[in-house]
């Protein structure tokens, strides 16, 4: 019998029962149609998208599916015509294509797993953006916390520094008077022959102890001021921003809005913490001053700009201005019940120790402006 000869049709096996026969025929037909359309769709995709990954595998998969479709079509043919040999040939082709696809598929599986879908890609992008923002916030928070810690630390030192500077200023005058008086008394006493050695010794002691007191004040002040060793080129605008962040909650409590007008300026060589202290002092004053303003428009602002060889920082508010009879910058004089009256005096010494000036301007109805300058070091 010939290999290609027709055998008994497969319908015989169904005993030509129409329900079973057509169930098979329709199912095979449906499967075949589906299997023919799948490779069509795949090939179209490959043509449109030149850079689809795993092109070879996709082509192989298309052939495999196509072959499967053909075997299902052959199943329909053999229901009425028994060409089992031809069906077998197609099955064999399908088998080869299947095995080929399987072989190609396995090694690329890890790569396929690594492929990310557009959704995944989008998710990943927004994740990294979120992470960056979180990092940025954390950094900002850390900076602001660091500044707060430094200020707290300096605050403790400052209480002593305030005392030292205030004391130095106020006590050195009477100390000089005592020293000079002891000296004159000594001269007087020496002229008088009847002066006892004890009196001379007492006067000499007064003189030397006065000098000692002066030395103590000097040492204390030097200890606090730490000289210029801690100076560095500083991004002043970013320090202003940090200071504003630091005081924002304070300002919100008083219903005050802190604005900033920061212009591009070169970095001055200054002590970061000391200048931060000046900014905090001026801003706190300003917030307190505006807090006393009864209008709803409570504003305070910090501005920086360059004026020739100097950096100018202006802190202004629309508060009611300074109390009558208060001399700003005078130590131990304050309009605030809880204040020590040292803030401005300290701030002025800090600014002056940087070679700058600190002063205030007042205009009725506009508010108060405190202005300080920092010279750019010419080196």
């Amino acid at each position, binding site marked *: 019998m010939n290999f290609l000869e027709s055998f008994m049709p497969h319908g015989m096996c169904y005993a030509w029962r129409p329900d079973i026969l057509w169930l098979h025929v329709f199912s095979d037909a449906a499967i075949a149609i589906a299997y023919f359309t799948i490779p069509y769709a795949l090939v179209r995709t490959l043509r449109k998208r030149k850079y689809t990954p795993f092109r070879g595998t996709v082509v192989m998969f298309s052939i495999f599916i196509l072959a499967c479709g053909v075997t299902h079509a052959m199943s329909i043919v053999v229901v009425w015509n028994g060409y089992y040999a031809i069906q077998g040939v197609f099955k064999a082709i399908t088998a080869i294509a299947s095995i080929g696809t399987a072989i190609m598929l396995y090694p690329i599986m890890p790569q396929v797993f690594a492929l990310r879908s557009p959704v995944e890609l989008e998710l990943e992008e927004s994740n990294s953006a979120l992470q960056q923002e979180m990092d940025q916030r954390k950094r900002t928070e850390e900076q602001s916390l660091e500044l707060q810690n430094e200020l707290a630390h300096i605050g403790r030192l400052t209480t002593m520094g305030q005392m030292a*500077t205030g004391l130095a200023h106020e006590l*050195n005058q009477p*100390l*000089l*008077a005592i020293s000079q008086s002891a000296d004159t008394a000594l001269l007087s006493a020496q002229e008088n022959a009847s002066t006892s050695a004890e009196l001379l010794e007492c006067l000499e002691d007064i003189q030397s102890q006065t*000098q000692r007191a002066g030395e103590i004040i000097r040492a204390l002040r030097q200890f606090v001021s730490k*000289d210029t060793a801690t100076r560095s080129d500083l991004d002043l605008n970013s320090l202003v921003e940090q200071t504003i962040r630091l005081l924002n909650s304070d300002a919100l409590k008083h219903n005050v809005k802190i604005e900033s007008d920061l212009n591009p300026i070169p970095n001055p060589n200054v002590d970061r913490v000391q200048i931060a202290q000046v900014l905090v002092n001026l801003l706190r004053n300003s917030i307190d001053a505006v807090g006393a303003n009864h209008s709803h428009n409570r504003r305070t602002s910090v501005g920086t700009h360059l004026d020739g060889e100097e950096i100018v920082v202006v802190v202004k508010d629309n508060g009611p201005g300074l109390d009558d009879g208060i001399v700003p910058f005078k130590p131990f004089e304050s309009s605030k019940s809880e204040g020590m009256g040292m803030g401005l005096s300290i701030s002025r010494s800090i600014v002056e120790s940087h070679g700058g000036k600190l002063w205030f301007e007042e205009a009725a109805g506009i508010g108060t402006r405190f202005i300080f300058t920092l010279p750019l070091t010419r080196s």
Partner: protein
Amino acid sequence: MSTVQSTVFLVDDDPSVRKTLPRGLIRRGFQVNAYESAKAFLDAYSTDQPGCLVLDLSMPEMDGLELQRELTHRNIAIPIIFITGHGGVPQSVQALKAGAIDFLEKPFLPDVLIRRIEEAFLQDQSTRSEQQKLASIREHFNRLTDRENEVLRLILEHQANLSSKQMAEILGISHRTVEQHRSRVLEKTQAKSTSNLLAMATLIGLIQSDIT
């Protein structure tokens, strides 16, 4: 000049300093004038008073550095000793750069101040004698007649390189007259030689010293 006693001009806003500091100085034979502000000093001071300034650094209104600047501006060369209650390093540098004798932190020993005052007096005296010398040279030069001045100008302009003959030609007068004027110029200005004349003219600014 030496008959006028040098004065210590004290400027300090603190009354206790104004009261006690002069006492010791006066006792040592110094003449002291004390002022409560920079303005009070400027109002009272005239440049013919020799002496030095003992100046407080920090004062309301015009502070010590500002007074120093003002004095420089007014061409007053009185030596300055700064005294301060809070020793500011930058200010002291600034003050010393601008020619201050010293920068003393209160409370200082009277001896230290006195040494500085004596130094300042010496400096003031030498400045004054220098100025007096210049003034007398200027005065001599002012005695020249118009014609003599013309001759002088020719001598200065040409660095004494013109002969009397050449000058006579330029001025349109006789050679002999030029010679006469020339010797009158040297006589009146008390110049020992033509080069001495040039040197004196440079001192009082008749010639720019940077001419080569």
